[in-house]
Each structure stands twice: as C-alpha cells, then as structure tokens.
C-alpha cells in the first residue's frame, strides 16, 4: 500500500516537474528583472490634434511632411460646392532635433503666412519605476503675414506683420483609448486695432477617443479669455484621425480658416453653429 502511494507521488512529481520547472525558471528570471520606466506611448496619433499641436514630439531624426487644407464654408451653398471651390493650404515640415525637441516651419496660403515653431517635451507621461501622470510640452511659434498692403504706396513694417504664440500643452492618456489635453495659450500681436489688447490669453481643451486601433475621433476648442466682444469666435473643431501605415489622415470640420496658431486662436471669424464650417484635412508622411 505504502509503496503504491510512493510510486504515485513519484509519478505525479515527474508529471508536474517539467511545467513547474519552467514556471520556476520564469519566476527566477522575473525576480531579477529590473523595474523599468515605461514612457506612455502615442497619447495622440499625430503632432496636431486638429488645428493646434499635441504634446507629441517627433523622434530624433525623423522628418514629417504635412499638407493641410481648409476649404470654404459649408453654408456657402451648392454654387461654391459647399466650400470645396475655395481652398487654402498649408505645407509644412517638422523635424525632431532630439526626442524631446521638434522644430518646424510652414506656409499657409491664407493671408500668405509663414510660420516657424519649436516645441519641447518638458515632462513625458510614464509609469513604472518613476511615475509621471501627465505630459507637458512647451510650444512657441512665430508667424509673418506677407500679404501686400491694399494701398501699394503704404509700407507695412515687418514688426507689424509678426505675431507670436506661446502654449503650455498638458496632456494625459487616461486609458489606451482616451486622451485629453489642456492648452493655456498666449497670443501676442505687435500691432492690433485700438480697442483690442496686444496680448490675448486663451484656454484650449481637446481630446481624442479611439474607436478602433486606427481610427479616432478628436475635438478641440479654444476659449478666448479677452476680447470677447469682437466679431471673432472661439475656434472649435471636430475631426477624425485615420492611420494607414506611414500616413496619418485627419479629416475635420472647423470654424477656422487659418492653420497657424495665432490665426485660429485669435482670428476665427466663423460661427460654427451658424453653419460657417470649413471642411478640411491634414495629411502627414513621416520619413
């Protein structure tokens, strides 16, 4: 009897030894595993939420080419093919100088505006050995309006054509599918009409919701804290991101024509809910 139990024991032992031994090996490996910090990946798919920037910086050495279009207003009717007859375009290049520092420039046909920017990832959301709950990116851009003066005899000095935007982009990827971003903003114009201030502050808020791995819905809104009694409106945009291989396609509806920060944050003239909606798209290609 006792012999039988003994053999049973031996047999059971042999049976489970193999699988158990491997699990033991695995836990041996895992015991000595150093605790690592994981940077939260892909808070947003692209470097642009819709009109404005996201916290995302390009990796060192990667170059991104952007083509963005905003068509005319949807409420311009069938004669203008709901705005499609009328397009303005921005071409741009973004380059990652380091993993944290991205610089770029572009040219928007709207008001023939040239812009340059730099963005720096101050904090990056991460978990593991060190935890950082949010990503914070500082953003600066300068824009030059190069439209010829209406009266060819007057000269507009360069300083009066220039404006600057400063932003602190704060984002958190709350879940793999949902990210939010806050964008406190300061837009400075060197020259403004008499009743307006040179500096305008605004608070932007935006987010993205992944519907599938490659499709997300994005929204972005900038609330201006001053100059609210002007004819301008707060910039509002709703869009989708569609990712295919090396491209990100962004399709959007917005009440802004401009694709430069100072333009859409401060100079949006469309009333979104009055139908002054521009259809548009951004296409990026990363090299």
């Amino acid at each position, binding site marked *: 009897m*006792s012999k039988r*139990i*003994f053999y049973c*024991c*031996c047999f059971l*032992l042999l049976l489970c*030894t*193999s*699988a158990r*031994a*491997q*699990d*033991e*090996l*695995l836990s*041996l*490996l*895992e015991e*000595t*595993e150093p605790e*690592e910090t*994981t940077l939260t*990946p*892909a808070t947003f798919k692209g470097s642009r939420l819709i009109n404005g920037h996201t916290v995302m910086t*390009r*990796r*060192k*050495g*990667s170059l991104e080419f952007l083509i963005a279009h905003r068509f005319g207003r949807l409420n311009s009717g069938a004669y203008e093919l709901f705005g499609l007859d009328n397009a303005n375009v921005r071409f741009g290049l973004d380059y*990652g100088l380091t993993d944290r520092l991205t610089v770029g420039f572009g040219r928007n046909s709207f008001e023939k505006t040239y812009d340059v920017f730099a963005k720096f990832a101050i904090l990056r959301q991460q978990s593991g050995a060190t935890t950082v709950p949010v990503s914070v990116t500082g953003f600066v851009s300068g824009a030059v309006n190069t439209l010829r003066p209406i009266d060819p005899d007057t000269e507009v000095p360069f300083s009066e054509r220039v404006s600057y935007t400063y932003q602190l982009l704060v984002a958190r990827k709350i879940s*793999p599918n949902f990210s939010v971003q806050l964008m406190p903003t300061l837009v400075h114009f060197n020259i403004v009409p008499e009743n307006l201030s040179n500096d305008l502050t605004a608070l932007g808020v935006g987010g993205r919701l992944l519907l599938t*791995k*490659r499709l997300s819905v994005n929204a972005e809104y900038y609330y201006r804290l001053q100059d609210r009694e002007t004819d301008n409106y707060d910039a509002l945009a709703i869009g989708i991101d569609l*990712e*295919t*291989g*090396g491209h990100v396609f962004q399709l959007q509806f917005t009440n802004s024509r401009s694709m430069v920060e100072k333009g859409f944050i401060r100079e949006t003239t469309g009333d979104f809910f009055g139908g002054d909606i521009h259809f548009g798209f951004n296409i990026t290609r*990363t090299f």
Partner: protein
Amino acid sequence: MKNILLVAVLLCTGVLSAQNPLITREGTTSFFSHAPLEDIEAVNDKTTAAIDFVKGDVVVKMLIKHFTFKNALMQEHFNENYMESEKFPAAIFKGKILTDEAIDLSQDGTYSVRVKGGLTIHGVEQAAEATAMITVTDGQVTAKTEFIARPADYDIEIPTVVVRNIAEEIQVTTTLNFSTTKE
C-alpha cells in the same frame, strides 16, 4: 508513511537544489519581414533567458517595447496597433530541449538540438518547435535558433492596406550568450 513523506520532501528539495540554470538578460532577438513593398527589421537586445541544462528546461522572455526599428513611427505602430504592448507587454517561450546526447558544459562542443514548447505572443500561446545550435567555448555557452512565426497564428491583425508591406511569415532569430563561470 512518515518515511514516504520524508522521501517525497527530499525528492522535492532535491529537484529544486539540482537546478543550476544559466541566465542572461542581454540576449538578442531580431525579426525580419520580407514583403513585396518593403523589408522590415527590428532588434531586441534585452532578451532574457534561463536554461537548465541538467533538466533541459528553457524559458525565454522579452518585452515587446524593447524592439527597436529604424523608423520611429513604425516602432510606434508595432507597439500600438499590432502587438498592443500595453496590453501584452511580453513574449514568452517555455519549453524543453530534446536531445539524445548529454550537453556537457565543461567541455567545448557543438550540439544541434530540438527545442519544443509553447510560445506566447500577443497573449496567444501556440505550440512551437525549432532547431537550436548550442555551442560551448571556454565556458561560454551560446544558443542560437531561427524559426518562423506567423502573425495570423497570434491574432495579430494586418489590415489590407498594408498587406503588401508586412510578410505573412516573419523570420525570427534569437541568440543567447551565457557564461558558466559565476561572476
């Protein structure tokens, strides 16, 4: 009866203490995808492994996020869209070395062995079998294996738009270097 228990306990502890697994944390795993439109390569040089040559047990574990690509965006997509590395952080192989001749780590030699077990990628475990070369030189043990993994077997979805960019069969190579002399 008491004796039997004693023997069983001894047997158990004997099994445990007989283990002298070799461990590395700096193994290399690379994969290569050859498709009509492009070739894609990535390397993970933080592959960890433990091999018990006495009993022939093998465990290999690597974190998906440690695979580096030339193209940063590709790396992001690999983690985000294909491997879902936030959800499934590691790939793990657990298996046994099948060999007729004993592997003697105290003498230089080369062994061609079969390794059989289960490979878990993207949260899906599949039976896997491959040939491995084990080389012993001056107390250094190198184990190298090459095998084919099919993304479809591991529920890794490849959308039709990139079907010509990503191969259906991915060639995987793992090289593990161990030192038998204790540090």
